[in-house]
């Protein structure tokens, strides 16, 4: 099945730009995992203005990466989407803070904090949930709107700033370390809020009509991720990532890869892509509670792991 | 061909003073007629009204045997993107090429056909503009100081030639040169300011068809008549 002519062409839409947090996706493409499965996959970068689930429906993409809240919202509006894998076992959306300024051991420590919130973003939902757990609301903290850059945090005007732990988090930690400041990350999961992050999705139609194709794609992708997360392959993975993410320095990428590994494969025996229905159920419950969806969408019924395509 | 005006009144909007008040006159037949009067009396205003009278049915202006009326004036310009010669070619109907050549000769514009309009002297601009109109279909052509910046000698030659070439058309010649008007025009409508008591009236001109040795007495009489009309 190596001959190019027989390969099936597929489009795979990421959530964000090429960087170390999609190391597995890059590795799959670079190391021929897809080709070996008889697939010719084009991976496309994403942005907030692009939405993998919409592209699935429009036929611009066959597979994609979407955050859990996107999936749940889409289901709420009648989109036909299924979840194939949950890339991050721990949500990389965390809050960075300087460790000499704060110690968060209990959620009530958040009271009165100056923190950044992306209005309308995941972090707002998560933070609201955390605050609710502590019996607080956004009015009990000082909120600064998050925008494209980090100046408010860098200039020390806010204490807690939301970042992606394994990309921006690493960069910021590095920048501050150079100035002799050390940082910590506030991880909501540590406080019982297990909000699912990015997952691999496809349309229900694809899952029903072409289970073989889904299986081929998914197993190639997960194999690639397994390989990419293997510390033994670190050099190759970094070289592959470097080809797509030229702007980031090597040692930063190395640190990012380490951080990614912790989030994707927290324990050596965790299978990459493992779907945790409980986390999904919690995510849906949170969104329902905050009025982001009007009625239950039963997202757990839309979860299909690799085994279901065997 | 007849042009008639029975009690025309006109004032610019937003202005109280009448520019034209109770104007009555009639002009007959083809040939060179004139509108004459002191600066600011309303010649241009009248000419523009006449040129567009069909759009203003309330005006007491009547014509018979006059189809197309064209109005030309001395500040008109030709577009600048090509030479004046090419512009003339473009607006000249196919069957009037000979007429065009003849007019260019009479108007002495041969040497400047290659120039842009903005490169012409004022008199050359006047002439170039007028030629365009003469090449069009018209029954009545109004010349509002259209040759004001041309020297007298050439202007007279042009007037005589136009009279001859377009003897079946009607012209309304507006000029400040009394001698010319008196000598070459048929009917001269002398406009007077509404504030004066004298009504506007028609004086008959000499309607010369060639540059003759001046028939001084009769010309003087006409000029005197015109000047005393306002």
């Amino acid at each position, binding site marked *: 099945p190596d001959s190019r002519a027989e390969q099936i062409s597929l489009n795979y839409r990421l959530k964000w730009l090429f960087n170390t947090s999609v190391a597995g996706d890059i590795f799959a493409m670079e190391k021929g995992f897809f080709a070996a499965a008889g697939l010719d996959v084009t991976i496309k970068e994403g942005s907030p203005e692009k939405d993998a689930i919409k592209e699935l*429906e429009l036929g611009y993409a066959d597979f994609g990466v979407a955050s859990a809240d996107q999936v749940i919202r889409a289901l709420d509006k009648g989109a036909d989407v299924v979840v194939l894998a949950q890339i991050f076992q721990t949500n990389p959306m965390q809050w960075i803070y300087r460790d000499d300024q704060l110690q968060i051991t209990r959620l009530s420590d958040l009271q009165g904090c100056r923190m950044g919130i992306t209005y309308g973003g995941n972090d707002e939902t998560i933070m609201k949930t955390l605050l609710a757990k502590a019996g607080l609301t956004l009015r009990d903290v000082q909120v600064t709107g998050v925008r494209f850059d980090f100046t408010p945090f860098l200039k020390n005007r806010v204490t807690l700033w939301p970042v992606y732990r394994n990309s921006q988090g690493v960069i910021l930690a590095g920048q501050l370390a150079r100035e002799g400041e050390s940082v910590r990350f506030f991880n909501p999961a540590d406080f019982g809020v297990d909000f699912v992050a990015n997952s691999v999705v496809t349309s229900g139609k694809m899952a029903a009509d072409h289970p073989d194709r889904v299986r081929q794609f998914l197993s190639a992708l997960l194999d690639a991720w397994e390989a990419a997360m293997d510390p033994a392959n670190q050099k190759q993975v970094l070289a592959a990532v470097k080809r797509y993410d030229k702007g980031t320095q090597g040692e930063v990428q190395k640190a990012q890869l380490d951080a990614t590994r912790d989030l994707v494969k927290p324990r050596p025996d965790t299978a990459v892509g493992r779907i945790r229905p409980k986390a999904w159920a919690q995510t849906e419950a949170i969104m329902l509670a905050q009025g982001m969806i009007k009625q239950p969408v039963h997202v757990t019924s839309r979860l299909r792991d690799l085994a279901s395509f065997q | 061909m007849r042009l008639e005006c029975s009690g025309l009144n006109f004032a610019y909007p937003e202005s109280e003073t009448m520019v034209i008040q109770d104007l009555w006159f009639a002009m007959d037949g083809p040939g060179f007629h004139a509108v004459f009067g002191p600066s600011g009396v309303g010649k241009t205003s009248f000419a*523009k009204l006449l040129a*567009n009278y069909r759009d203003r049915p309330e005006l007491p202006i009547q014509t018979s045997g006059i189809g197309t009326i064209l109005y030309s004036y001395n500040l008109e310009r030709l577009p600048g993107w090509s030479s004046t010669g090419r512009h003339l070619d473009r607006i000249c109907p196919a069957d009037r090429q000979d007429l065009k050549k003849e007019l260019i000769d009479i108007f002495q514009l041969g040497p400047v056909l290659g120039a842009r309009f903005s490169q012409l002297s004022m008199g050359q601009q006047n002439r170039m503009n007028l030629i365009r109109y003469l090449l069009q279909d018209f029954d009545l052509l109004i010349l509002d100081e259209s040759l004001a910046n041309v020297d007298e000698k050439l202007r007279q030659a042009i007037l005589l030639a136009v009279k001859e070439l377009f003897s079946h058309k009607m012209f309304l010649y507006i000029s400040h040169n009394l001698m010319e008007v008196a000598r070459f025009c048929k009917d001269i409508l002398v406009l007077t300011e509404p504030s004066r008591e004298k009504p506007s009236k028609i004086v008959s001109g000499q309607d010369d068809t060639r540059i003759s040795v001046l028939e001084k007495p009769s010309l003087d009489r006409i000029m005197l008549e015109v000047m005393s009309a306002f």
Partner: protein
Amino acid sequence: MLFRRIYQFMIVYAVFLAILLVVKKGLSLSDYVIPGLSLILETAVQMSAGFFTDVMDTLSVAILGQGISIFLAFFVGILGRKSSWAGSMIRVTAYNIQAYPIVALAPIIFILLGDGFLSRLLIAAMICYFPLLLSVLGVMAAPVEDIEHFYIATGRMRWQLEVKIRAFENLSKLTTVIAGSATLAMAGTIVAEFIAANAGIGYSIRIALYQSDLAAILTALFMIGIVISVYQGILETLGEMVKAKWGSENKGVLL
């Protein structure tokens, strides 16, 4: 005229919506990709009051920003109208600033000015001023010889007079551009709010965008359109009044 503007906008919007709905039907897309009419209406009913307040908030900043832009455009346009070294320097500066995407400059602006109202205003003005500047430069750089000759020959020409003459002779062009730039000011303010603010319709759009809520975006676009149409209509009427009063161009009344 104002009324006409509004219903014309309604027509445009309706056509736009119809195209979207046809695409939806044609490709049988879910409400997530393109919301159905009922969802849009529902969202509109829910959101429109709030969005209206947001748009008015945005509009107030936009008006201020437009004022600043007009000032800035004339300021730079007048300084940069000469083909001298200094004039060319000013133009180079003005042009270059424009070439930078505001998103790239935003961090620097925030560092220098903080992220309050001032930054928002500056960003709005920066987006709005440049097109104005181009027109002002075009007008200010072209001499009106027939009028200026006297003042130059008699040594009476001052830059104020030169500017006045050229502005006056191009009054209708300038009022067109100024009235038109209202939409730019609006767009600029929305972008500024989108980047950094917690108020205004730009902020609401960002939330809708993050939540993939196209119905909310469509509602916001409708609100923006209505308000812009009214504002623009008022500006145009003002422009006509200025022309009528200052200009009194009765030249072509008869012809």
